[in-house]
């Protein structure tokens, strides 16, 4: 990261170099999907679709689902 260090003599913020797309994509794909799965469980599980049987997931996050704007029941 040494190339990002601002010159000590200037006060202007150093503009960061761009991160290569190739370095981002593996993280974006894997963690992007993981995060979307988390959002699915907060926002939609046991509503329109259901992977886990019962009502417990829905009931547990009930208030959050309403207040975060997801359609609930």
């Amino acid at each position, binding site marked *: 990261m040494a190339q990002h*260090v601002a010159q000590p003599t200037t006060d202007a913020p150093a503009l960061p170099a*761009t991160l290569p797309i190739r370095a981002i994509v593996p993280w974006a794909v894997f963690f992007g999907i993981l995060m979307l799965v988390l959002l699915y469980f907060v926002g939609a599980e046991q509503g*329109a679709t259901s992977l886990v049987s*019962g009502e417990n997931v829905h*009931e*547990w996050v009930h208030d959050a689902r*309403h*207040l975060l704007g997801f*359609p609930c029941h």
Partner: protein
Amino acid sequence: MNSATVRNLLVRGMLAGLAAGLLALLVAYVLGEPSVDDAIGFEQSHAPAHTHEVEAVSRSLQSTAGLATGVLVYGVAFGGIAALAFCFALGRVGRFAPRATALLLSGTALLAVYVVPFLKYPANPPSVGDADTIDRRTTLYFLMMLLSVLLAVAAVIVGRRLAGRLGHWYATVTGVAFFVLVIGVAFAFLPAVNEVPKDFPATLLWRFRMSALAIQVTLWAGFGLVFGELAQRLLSPRPATAPAARATPVPH
């Protein structure tokens, strides 16, 4: 080293999302829960007797631990996604320092992920919404969210493409105009949802929706500021505040 930077930003994004989630949780509990309780009171006083079910999770758990689970997981998940988006945006959307890029991205995410879908399909308290239409409402809401996010990304790309020809100001105006125009068309053509019970108090609905909006504003503002600070420190450490660290690279 670049992959390590992405990983470090992702971890910081999720932590910032957790911190912002805690702030949002406070707002949700203080501002949101009273309206949820009032709406449940309305539901119980209007529901036919046979719809009373056995509570799987008690109200006191729903409004505390349940609410916390939902809001914090939401914060961490969007924190991670926003951090990954930040990795793409950094240095590509204009001459902005990491801190400014983070706040711009956060503001854009608030609009694209929440405010735009909210304008068409606003958040509803308990007792608003017919259980039989949950499939349709869920599909429409996620469709609106997806459309809004994809269009925001498209608008940024259009703006960037035009920047060379039109200059930054007009390229940005054109990008935003493109977004507003297409979203306007989508608003006009997507079906409306109106399932508010006839005698549901309008002030309660307004209060609920304002608190839902306040939660999101808190979440994204908190995320933008916290993540921006963390990203700034990671990517461009200030030599003035850490003279000893000047010679040594940031450890990964």
